[in-house]
């Protein structure tokens, strides 16, 4: 792609100038940066919002970080985690050398010894047990080149599809929702829709803590346009609820009923967008009563069936406001207010959701249902109206979803099960026909169950900390403790964690600006950065580690020698995206921009996908062109998905609902942010949020310790009453960041049968004084 410098500059300027947060002249600010430091841009290391930062380096260390005023995402503002990025790299216990476990001790290895050992272990396992006996478990925080290298090594090299990532725990329901509805993954809208919206609907999403910068933009919109409303659908009163105009406190799993109730109301009151639905949508139903994937080797295949509008109408008819009240616990007048917002032809409505919807035993269905609400009401594809699936991790979109580093994925919306997709990839990778294995590999939980059962002989974990984040930890971790000699676990990380504690070989990684990289955020924005400093000791990028092992195993043809490894692999990957509506910008273009939203065609990014006039792939006529939905003739699918109960509900023995989640101050398992004094002191340890009435009944005071017990495990935690959030009566909430207080020893590993994503938000526990 050739793009003139003048044109490029114009694009960048237009992007930056799109809108401003009220009252701030963000651009004026970037000019006063300390000249004794070297400054360069990088996306924030943490969440899927993808804020732009400017990083100040002095004496080989990152000493300051400021929000990038030129980034259209955050316009100069960061959250507490982003501002504390410098100290994240500087923990005194950074891993510095490869270390091999010998009994209960570790022996320092040279990189040559370590890489030869990894290559030998993989080779040995391949020889004995074939491609099914090896695996890699990566991350939505892998850079794009890292995920791509792992993908190429596994699928084009070792012919193994056993590559999966922690995104299985956070985003696969969203992926399945997109693919089954629109035929292609990732949102059509953009963050700039915030400044055009009249109504925000948050589906089980505490944005104030998890997506703080977007929440700030929402509040700024509310201030600038006073009639703007926020609906907060939630199972507990959060910091987000404090700012909402309507808080709809619902029962767990009640979201299925609420969405169906809105669809029914739109149809029953003739408030749906007939023209839009007629031209751009079809109706489908699938299997029902689909189980919870708790069994080992669970299999499921949906059976989509097209239905008429009348048949669809009959399927949603049972969800009257009274029925929704029974299933979801929200008052009929509240449902009415929400439905009317969607039924108002003048209102612009943005829906946001993240883990509340995705970590759900009906996660794919819930994604389908939110799209159904937006498609029926026509609230899609115009500035200010869009369903927007938020992501948790910095590159869950850019790496896992776009590069396809999952057990069934291939780059750019391709699947190993599709012969045409396999052929395309084999050609681009220049490997013989039939190289790619057509059978999907093991997904995240099967990887760890397989490691516990001894079916998987070698597993490499990179950029993630599964022995804090997996649900039902005893089932998915303890087997590895027991059969340590039978399998070989390699862990690449930057700090010691509960996962490195179980590793047979620990490899020290470089982090963030200690390497070249690129992330892709939730609004299809690819953001690149250059290496700014060296990692501590002998720490090396995960990319270099992967490529060196692949070369030592004889896959050098897939990874030619180069001095610009990250750039070359990114450009190699980019070939898969060009011409099919997923066109990522070139590495050099990305170096010059705060970030560009794909599809990038002729140097222009695409803020709104599928919309003629915005997206060069969309046909000129009509309101929208779902051009990736080839199977359904460019029409999006409105799915009939019923309410089904959760697998484990509170009963006499375990009378409380347990929900888990993140906090503003810590990034996921806290292995980085807990090493920052300011963040640690702000949030020193996990706690158990309870309702005051429950505490009174049990005679518990704030600060007391309680023992939480589920059918799977038990921990003791400090009780928090009326602190950050307030659960409903009969509910408790515990964050998962604390490696000393592992709430995942209690959670249930029930999954969405379609996406295989576990539900961390619902299980039954009892509460006792401790």
């Amino acid at each position, binding site marked *: 792609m050739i793009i003139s410098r003048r044109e490029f*500059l114009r694009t*960048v300027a237009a992007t930056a*100038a799109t*809108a401003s*947060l*009220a*009252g*701030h*002249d*963000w651009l*004026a*600010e*970037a*000019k*006063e*940066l*300390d*000249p004794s430091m070297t*400054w*360069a*841009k990088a996306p924030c290391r943490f969440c899927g919002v993808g804020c732009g930062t400017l990083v100040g380096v*002095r004496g080989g260390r990152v*000493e*300051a970080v*400021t*929000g990038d005023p*030129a980034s259209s995402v955050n316009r*100069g503002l960061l959250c*507490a985690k982003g*501002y504390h990025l*410098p*100290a994240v*790299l*500087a*923990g*005194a*216990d950074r891993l510095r050398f490869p270390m091999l476990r010998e009994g209960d001790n570790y022996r320092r290895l040279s990189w040559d010894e370590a890489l030869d050992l990894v290559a030998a272990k993989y080779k040995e396992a391949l020889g004995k047990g074939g491609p099914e006996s090896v695996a890699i478990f990566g991350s939505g925080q892998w850079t794009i080149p890292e995920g791509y290298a792992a993908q190429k090594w596994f699928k084009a090299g070792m012919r193994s599809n056993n590559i999966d990532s922690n995104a299985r725990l956070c985003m696969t329901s969203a992926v399945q929702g997109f693919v089954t509805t629109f035929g292609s993954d990732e949102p059509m809208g953009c963050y700039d829709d915030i400044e055009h919206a009249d109504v925000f609907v948050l589906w089980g999403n505490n944005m*104030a803590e998890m997506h703080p910068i977007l*929440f*700030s933009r929402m*509040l700024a919109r509310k*201030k600038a346009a006073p009639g703007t409303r926020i609906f907060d659908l939630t199972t507990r009163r959060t910091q987000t609820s*404090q*700012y909402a105009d309507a808080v709809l406190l619902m029962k767990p799993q009640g979201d299925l009923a609420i969405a169906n109730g809105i669809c029914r109301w739109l149809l029953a009151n003739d408030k749906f967008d007939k023209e839009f639905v007629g031209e751009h949508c079809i109706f489908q139903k699938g299997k029902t009563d689909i189980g919870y994937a708790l069994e080992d080797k669970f299999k499921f295949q949906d059976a989509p069936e097209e239905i008429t509008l009348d048949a669809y109408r009959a399927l949603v008819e049972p969800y009257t406001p009274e029925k929704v009240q029974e299933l979801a616990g929200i008052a009929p007048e509240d449902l009415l207010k929400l439905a009317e917002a969607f039924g108002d032809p003048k209102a612009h409505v943005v829906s946001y959701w993240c883990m509340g919807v995705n970590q759900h035993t009906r996660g794919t269905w819930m994604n389908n249902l939110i799209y159904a609400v937006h498609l029926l009401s026509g609230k899609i594809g115009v500035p200010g109206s869009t369903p927007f699936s938020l992501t948790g991790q910095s590159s869950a979109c850019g790496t896992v979803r776009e590069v396809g580093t999952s057990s069934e994925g291939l780059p750019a919306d391709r699947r190993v099960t599709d012969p045409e997709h396999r052929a395309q990839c084999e050609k681009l990778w220049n490997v013989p026909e039939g190289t790619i294995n057509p059978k999907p590999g093991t997904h995240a939980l099967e990887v760890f169950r397989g490691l516990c059962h001894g079916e998987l002989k070698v597993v490499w974990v990179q950029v993630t900390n599964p022995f804090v984040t997996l649900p039902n930890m005893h089932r998915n971790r303890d087997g590895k403790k027991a059969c340590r000699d039978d399998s070989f676990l390699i862990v690449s990380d930057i*700090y010691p964690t509960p996962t490195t504690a179980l590793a047979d070989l620990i490899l020290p990684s470089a982090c963030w600006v200690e390497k070249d990289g690129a992330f892709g955020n939730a609004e299809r924005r690819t953001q690149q950065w250059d290496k700014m400093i060296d990692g501590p000791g002998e720490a090396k990028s995960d990319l270099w580690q992967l490529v060196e092992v692949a070369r030592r195993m004889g896959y050098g043809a897939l990874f030619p020698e180069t001095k610009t490894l990250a750039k070359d692999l990114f450009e190699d990957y980019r070939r898969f995206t060009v011409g099919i509506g997923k066109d990522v910008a070139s590495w050099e273009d990305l170096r*010059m921009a*705060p970030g560009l939203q794909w599809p990038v065609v002729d140097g222009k990014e695409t803020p709104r996908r599928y919309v003629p006039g915005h997206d060069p792939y969309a046909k000129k006529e009509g309101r929208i062109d779902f051009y990736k939905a080839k199977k359904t003739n460019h029409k999006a699918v409105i799915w009939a998905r019923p309410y089904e109960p959760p697998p484990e509900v509170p009963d006499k023995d375990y009378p409380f609902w347990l929900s888990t989640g993140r906090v503003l*101050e810590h990034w996921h398992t806290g292995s980085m942010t807990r090493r*920052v*004094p*300011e*963040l*640690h*002191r*702000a*949030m*020193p*340890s996990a706690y158990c949020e309870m309702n005051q009435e429950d505490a009174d009944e049990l005679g518990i005071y*704030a*600060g007391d310790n309680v023992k939480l017990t589920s059918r799977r495990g038990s921990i003791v935690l400090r009780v928090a009453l009326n602190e950050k959030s307030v659960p409903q009566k009969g509910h408790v909430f515990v964050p998962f960041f604390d490696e000393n207080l592992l709430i995942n020893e209690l959670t249930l590993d029930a999954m969405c049968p379609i996406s295989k994503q576990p539900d961390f938000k619902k299980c039954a526990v009892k509460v006792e004084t401790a």
Partner: protein
Amino acid sequence: MTTRTVLATLAFAVVAFLLRSAYTDPPVENPPAEPPPAAAPPIAPPAAEPAPVPAPAAEPVPAAAPAPIPAAAPAPGPAVRPATVVPLRPNRSYDGAPPVIPHTVTALAAEDCLECHGDKEVGAPRSPHADLQRCLQCHLPQPGTGQFKETSFAPSTYPIGLRGHSYGPWLIPHPLTMRENCLPCHSGEKTSEALRTTHPERTRCVQCHVPANERWPGPRRDVQLSPLK
């Protein structure tokens, strides 16, 4: 924030302010052990090393109580102002990081914080960006103590106390990000004398006081960005 809490905080702020002159050094006792008690005792700034000379109060530290801020340096001459040449890093990870909150927080909304940190001078540092509404997104209370693991992070600080020549106006030593509004930190009775402007009536500060540093980062140096409207 309940009226009672507001009153308690105000009362505490006043007492702390009166006590301030008794301190010659920042109090060094540790913050309260968690869970935090209802009252908010003064806590030490989390900076690893104590400032060699009293830290100026003009940093936008959102404290209800100015406890960590000791008395201003005694009678600085107008041309020298020694207090401005000490590192500005109390209560922050590094210059440019948002200051942490040195008191207990029981309310979440910006209006609650602005009761003390808004336009009106009540003794607490005033926010230079009061239009932003979610204070706790960047400014963190510190109920915990100690460290999870040791850190080796110890940044150096911005060069400050700069002027072009001995009669020139002071240069602005810090980025203006989140500090576009000068007066909350540089005017008012309660502001450290070292940083208090002698001419608050002239509202176009940057007409004379220019940023000490001007530089675009890395590869985008040439990018011309149109101003936001």
